[in-house]
C-alpha cells in the first residue's frame, strides 16, 4: 500500500476532486500543515482531513505528526506514473509535433537562411 509505486486507480481517484487538486497545488509549492491546507478551501477541518486521507492512500502525499501539528508534503515523483500513463496514450502525431518543437528550439537562431553550419 505504501510502496514506491502508487496504484493508478487511487491516483486518478485522488485527482478527480477539485478540492484535493487545490491541496496538491498548494503542496507542490512546499510542505504545509493541515490548517494551511484548509485555509483557502471553504471546507471544514474534518473534511480536509478526509481528503488528505485519500491523497495519502494514493501515495501522492505523505504526512507526519509532530506534537499536535500534522505536516503534509507531496511525494516526489508520485505523479510520474499518472503522467507516464497519459503520455503513453498520446498519438504518433502528438509525439512528432513534440519532436518538431524540440528540433525548432535546438536550431540556432543566428543562421538566418535556415542552413546549419
Amino acid at each position, binding site marked *: 500500500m505504501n510502496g514506491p509505486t502508487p496504484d493508478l486507480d487511487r491516483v486518478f481517484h485522488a485527482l478527480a476532486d477539485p478540492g484535493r487538486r487545490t491541496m496538491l497545488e498548494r503542496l507542490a509549492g512546499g510542505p504545509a500543515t493541515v490548517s494551511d491546507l484548509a485555509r483557502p478551501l471553504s471546507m471544514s477541518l474534518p473534511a480536509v482531513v478526509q481528503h488528505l486521507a485519500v491523497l495519502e492512500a494514493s501515495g501522492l502525499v505523505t504526512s507526519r505528526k509532530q506534537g499536535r501539528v500534522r505536516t503534509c508534503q507531496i511525494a516526489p515523483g508520485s505523479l510520474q506514473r499518472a503522467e507516464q500513463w497519459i503520455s503513453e496514450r*498520446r498519438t504518433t502525431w502528438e509525439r512528432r509535433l513534440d519532436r518538431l518543437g524540440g*528540433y*525548432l528550439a535546438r536550431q540556432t537562431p543566428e543562421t538566418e537562411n535556415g542552413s546549419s553550419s
Partner: protein
Amino acid sequence: MTERNVTHGTFSLERTYEVPPSRVYAAFATLEGKAAWFDGGEGRTVVERAFDFREGGTERAVGRWDNGTVTQFDARYFDVVPEARIVYAYEMRLNGVKISVSLATIEFKPAGKGTRLLLTETGAFLDGYDDAGSREHGTNFLMDRMGASLGRELAGA
C-alpha cells in the same frame, strides 16, 4: 483469412512554436529539416528515404525498428503553398501490410513572433490495424524525453 473492415477517423492538433512560419515550414519542406523530427528516433534505422517536396512530388520513408518491425510511409503532395499550407495523402504499411490511407493538411499561421501549426488528418484505418510499431517505439522515445524533461525540472527547482 483477414477480416475486411475500415474505420474512419478525423483528428486535429494545434501547436504554437516560438519561431516564424518560414522556419516551421522549412522543417516540412526540406529533407534535413523533416528527418530531424519525422523519421523516428533511437531504435529505428532508416532503410529507404526519398523526398521530392513539390506539388505532385512523392515522399517515402521506410524504417526498421530494433524489434524487426518495418514501417513504410508513402506520400504524394497535392497542394503546397510556401509558409502557409501543405496538403498530402499517404499510405502506411506495417511489415508490408497496408494499414491506413490518410489525407493530411498542415497549416502555418503567424502568431506574434511565432507560428501556430494546425494539423488536420482524415484516415481510413484498414482491417483492424493501427500504427502499432511506431506507437510502441514512439512511447519509448517519449519516456526518454520525459525523463530528460523531468531532470530539467528538478534541476530548475
